[in-house]
C-alpha cells in the first residue's frame, strides 16, 4: 500500500528520525546517570555512585515516601469513585446524567494550572492547612476520570446475561455483584487503579499548588533539583522514576488485556 517511490522512502526516513527524536534525549539522560563525571558532559567512566547517593539523600527519601503515601491513598479513593461512576453512567438513566458525565471528565481537558489554583483558593479560603491531605484530595479529583474511563471501556463489552443467569439461579443483587460482576470487571478496575497510581506519582502542577511546607513529593523535588542545576544525581533519579512509571504502565496494559 505504501509504494516504493522516493515519497515512501522520505516518509520512512522522517518517521525513523521522529522516533529517534522522541527517544534519544531519554536514552542520553539514562546513559549519563552512570557517568562518573559530575559535569554531566563527557563520558568518563561507569559508576553507580549517583544511585548510591540517591539512597542516602534523606530529603529525597522523604519526598519519595510522600509521593507513595499520596499515590496509594488517592488511588484507593479514586478507584472506588471511578468504578462507581462508570457503573452508574453505563447502567442507569437519571436526570442530570450528562451533566455528571461532563463534570467527571472535566479534569481531563481543564488546564492543570486552573485546577491547581482553584483548589488552592478553595482550601485556603476555607481555612484548610495545605499539606499531604490537601494533595491527596486534589489527586483523587483528577485520577477518578482515568479510572472511570478504563472501567467504562471494560463495561462496554460486558455480557449482562451472566448476571441475569445468576439471579435466575437465586442469587440476590449484592451476591450477583460480588460473585459475577466484580470478578469480571476486576481487570479493568485494576488497570484503572494502576493508571491512577501512575498519574498521581507523576503529577507536578496540581501538587505544586496544593501542597504545604514539609509535604514535598518526588516530582516537586525533581523540579527544585533541576532549577538548582544539572547533576548526574538528577539523571539517576529520573531513570528510577522512568523505570517505575513504565513498569506500571506495562503492567496496567497486561492486566487490562487479561481474560
Amino acid at each position: 500500500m505504501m509504494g516504493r517511490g522516493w515519497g515512501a522512502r522520505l516518509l520512512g526516513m522522517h518517521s525513523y528520525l521522529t522516533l529517534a527524536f522522541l527517544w534519544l534525549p531519554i536514552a542520553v539522560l539514562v546513559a549519563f546517570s552512570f557517568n562518573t563525571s559530575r559535569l554531566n558532559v563527557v563520558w568518563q567512566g561507569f559508576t553507580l555512585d549517583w544511585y548510591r547517593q540517591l539512597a542516602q539523600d534523606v530529603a529525597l527519601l522523604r519526598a519519595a515516601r510522600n509521593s507513595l503515601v499520596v499515590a496509594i491513598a488517592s488511588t484507593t479513593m479514586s478507584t472506588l469513585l471511578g468504578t462507581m461512576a462508570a457503573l452508574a453512567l453505563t447502567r442507569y438513566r437519571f436526570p442530570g446524567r450528562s451533566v455528571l458525565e461532563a463534570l467527571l471528565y472535566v479534569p481531563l481537558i481543564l488546564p492543570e494550572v486552573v485546577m491547581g489554583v482553584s483548589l488552592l483558593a478553595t482550601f485556603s479560603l476555607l481555612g484548610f492547612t495545605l499539606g499531604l491531605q490537601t494533595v491527596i484530595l486534589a489527586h483523587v479529583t483528577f485520577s477518578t476520570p482515568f479510572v472511570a474511563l478504563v472501567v467504562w471501556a471494560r463495561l462496554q463489552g460486558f455480557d449482562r446475561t451472566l448476571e441475569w443467569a445468576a439471579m435466575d439461579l437465586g442469587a440476590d443483587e449484592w451476591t450477583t455483584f460480588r460473585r459475577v460482576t466484580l470478578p469480571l470487571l476486576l481487570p479493568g478496575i485494576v488497570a484503572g487503579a494502576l493508571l491512577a497510581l501512575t498519574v498521581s506519582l507523576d503529577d507536578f502542577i496540581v501538587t505544586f499548588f496544593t501542597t504545604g511546607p514539609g509535604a514535598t513529593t518526588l516530582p516537586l523535588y525533581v523540579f527544585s533539583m533541576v532549577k538548582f542545576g544539572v547533576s548526574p544525581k538528577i539523571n539517576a533519579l529520573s531513570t528510577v522514576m522512568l523505570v517505575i512509571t513504565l513498569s506500571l504502565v506495562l503492567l496496567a496494559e497486561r492486566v487490562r488485556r487479561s481474560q
Partner: protein
Amino acid sequence: MTRRDRLRLLALVGPLATWLLLFEVIPLLLVLAVSFMRRGTRGPVMMAFTLENYRRFADPLYLGILGDSLRIAFLTTAICLLVGYPFAYYLSHLPAPRRTRWLALVILPFWTNMLIRTYAWIMLLRSNGLINNLMQSLGIIRQPLTLLYTQEAALLGLVYSLLPFMILPLYASIEKLDRRLVQAAQDLGAGPVRAFLRVTLPLTMPGVIAGSILVFIPSLALFYITDLMGGARAVLIGNLVQRQFTQARDWPFGAAASVILTVVSLLLILLYVRYFAPRGGEGWV
C-alpha cells in the same frame, strides 16, 4: 425504577456527585468569583467587586503575554502537526507486528513524566551541555551558543513533550480511514497529492482537530516547561497564573488570567464538538 434501584443509584452517584461538587464545581466558581475581587491586605482577597483585573489585560505588557501565548501555542501545534501527521500516516501503513512495536515506542514516552523529558533537553542545551561541548570539541564553534532560555528552546520543550498527544489521535483517525476511498479517487484519475488533499485529509480531520486541541491547550498551561526552557523569554498565560498565585500574591489577577485561559480552552473544545465530533458518537478514543 423501583425503590431499591433508586437507593442503589443514590449510593453510586451520591458520593461522586458530592465529590465533584466540592472539589470541582465550587473551586471553579470560586476562581470566577475571585477574579472580580480586589487584592486583599490581610488575606489574599478582599470582598470588593471590581473589573480591574480584566481591564489590566488591555495593558500592552499583558496583551503581549496573551499574544506570545497564542503564538507559541499555535507554533507548537503546527510543528507537532507537520511532524506528527506523516509519522502517523507511516505508522498506520506498517505491517502488524512492527506497528505494535512502534505504537508502544510512541505511547511509552506519552506516559513518562514531562518534567524528566524536559530535563533531558536542559542537559543537552545548556551552555555547558552536551550539544555545545560536542560542537566546541569538534571545532564548529568557539564559544558556547545560548540555546537554553530562549523562546525557541521553550518551543522545543513543548513540542517534545506534546508530540505523542498529536500522534496518537492522528493515528487513530488515519487508521480508520477506508483505503478503498483513496483508491477510488486514484482510479478516477487523481494523483497522489490530490487524492490526499481531497480524500485523506478531510476524512482524517477529526484526528487533526483532536490532536491540535490536545497540544494547543497544554501549550498555554504547561508553565514549568516554558519556565525551565525559556525562562524570562517565554512567559505565557500559564506562567502568569503561576506567578500571581505564588510570588506576586495577586490572586484576583491570577484568577482573571485563569478564567481567560479556561475560556480559550472551552471555546476550542466547543469548536471541535460542534464541527468535528462524529455523529455516531464513537469518537476517536
